[in-house]
């Protein structure tokens, strides 16, 4: 296939298969959220928005999801960093990437007891999230360390008189953070949208934002379905803003 045709065909396919579904979905969501497609509303209305935004549910859900995500990424980052500096065998740790959220949720659900299932602090949710995220971050940190030549930089620090601990504080962690902060933010965003773990292990209130949206969508009520779309749109706007900020700020690291 001539390069000319392929250089148009593949991007077109990418747009069709990846971008268009999201764009069309957002279009439909907007129609529902503003009453154009709703069975219970009569044309354009902001009633659904005021109904949703004036309830505390969505704000508590967003806050809860953000806290859940920060805790998971923070704890997993600490564990992955510890694994890197203690030189754990990454080939074995990487195998834990085969454990998905579904299985992590099930394991914590079955073995966690009252401490970790539907507990008020979300400890079970945290444990399950760390189970799937820490191994992935360990591999990511190891790859990043290799890519930047971290060992040589650590040697350079030691020759300037830095002890092991000082080296990790002034060089190891800042170098990794500098290189991976965009990835960590993306992971934070991804885990804020976590579904199966809070679905199984979370309490009925506050719900994670994805669980809230799913429950509103899945109820056999024509009133709550448009509310689900409002929640989806609010979530996407917030995530989109964070993503755009991070994209601009980390242009050089992604080059």
């Amino acid at each position, binding site marked *: 296939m001539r390069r000319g045709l392929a250089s148009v065909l593949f991007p077109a396919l990418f747009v069709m298969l990846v971008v268009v579904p999201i764009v069309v979905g957002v279009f439909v969501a907007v129609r529902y959220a503003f009453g154009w497609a709703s069975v219970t509303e009569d044309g354009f209305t902001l009633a659904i928005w005021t109904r949703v935004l004036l309830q505390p549910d969505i704000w508590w859900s967003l806050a809860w999801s953000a806290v859940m995500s920060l805790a998971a990424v923070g704890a997993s980052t600490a564990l992955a960093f510890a694994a890197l500096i203690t030189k754990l065998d990454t080939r074995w740790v990487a195998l834990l990437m085969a454990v998905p959220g579904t299985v992590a949720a099930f394991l914590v659900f079955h073995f966690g007891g009252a401490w970790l299932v539907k507990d008020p602090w979300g400890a079970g949710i945290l444990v399950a999230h760390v189970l799937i995220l820490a191994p992935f971050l360990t591999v990511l940190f190891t790859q990043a360390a290799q890519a*930047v*030549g971290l060992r*040589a*930089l650590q*040697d*350079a*620090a*030691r*020759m*300037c*008189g*830095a*002890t092991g601990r*000082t080296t990790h504080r*002034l*060089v190891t962690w*800042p*170098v990794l*953070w*500098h*290189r991976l902060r965009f990835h960590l933010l993306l992971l934070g965003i991804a885990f804020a949208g976590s579904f199966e773990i809070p679905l199984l292990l979370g309490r009925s209130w506050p719900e994670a934002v994805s669980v809230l949206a799913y429950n509103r969508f899945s109820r056999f009520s024509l009133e709550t379905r448009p509310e689900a779309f409002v929640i989806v749109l609010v979530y996407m706007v917030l995530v989109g803003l964070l993503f755009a900020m991070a994209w601009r700020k980390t242009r*050089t690291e992604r080059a």
Partner: protein
Amino acid sequence: MIAEGIRKAFRTASGEEAVLQGVSFALAPTDHVAILGASGSGKTTLLRILAGLERADAGRISLDDDDITDWPPERRRVVYMPQDALLFPHLSALENVLFPLRVQGISDADARERARPLMARLGLDAHAGKRPDALSGGQRQRVAFGRAILASPRVLLLDEPFGALDHAARSEMQSVFLDVVVEQSLATLFVTHDPGEALRIGTRWGHLAAGVLHLFHDREAFVTADRTGIPQERSFWASI
């Protein structure tokens, strides 16, 4: 610095390969020893052992009457500068230079005040705020050099640090280096594969080949020794 009987071998697929075979030398406080050696002669391994980044299989290293053979790098105050400047990518040029002062616990304000004159001396004033990836090769080497100086080394080990620079930048760097090390009264051990650089930088000379170090008693002996390749090069230029 005194090195006695340094030996090092590496295990390879075909057995053990001796990289250093009983290397010995003495470095006085203001000596600048230039060691000539081709690739694979053991130069880098020798410097890394002296800096404490690798362990020798046998031998002893002492510095100012201290036996530092088993000392970790952060304790030795022997700074090793490789060809790759190895600047910290998350720090600016100025922050890289004053890094050793931060390690010593000196306050940010004091550290910047101490680093500024050296930055000016090295022609880095205008580049102080730039990250390493925005600096040229020559600028990166100057930053690495400034960082090494502020680590207050007793000995500075340089592993072809100007090898990646073009002729003009290299010449300039050699001048800056000479001025600063003389000013700071630093002992240096400098390895290179360029005889001209060795002659320009050094006050004493050696040749490392197949893990064996041969030291010359004076400059004349160095330039007339066949093993260095200098006589052959002189003949070549003379014939043009």
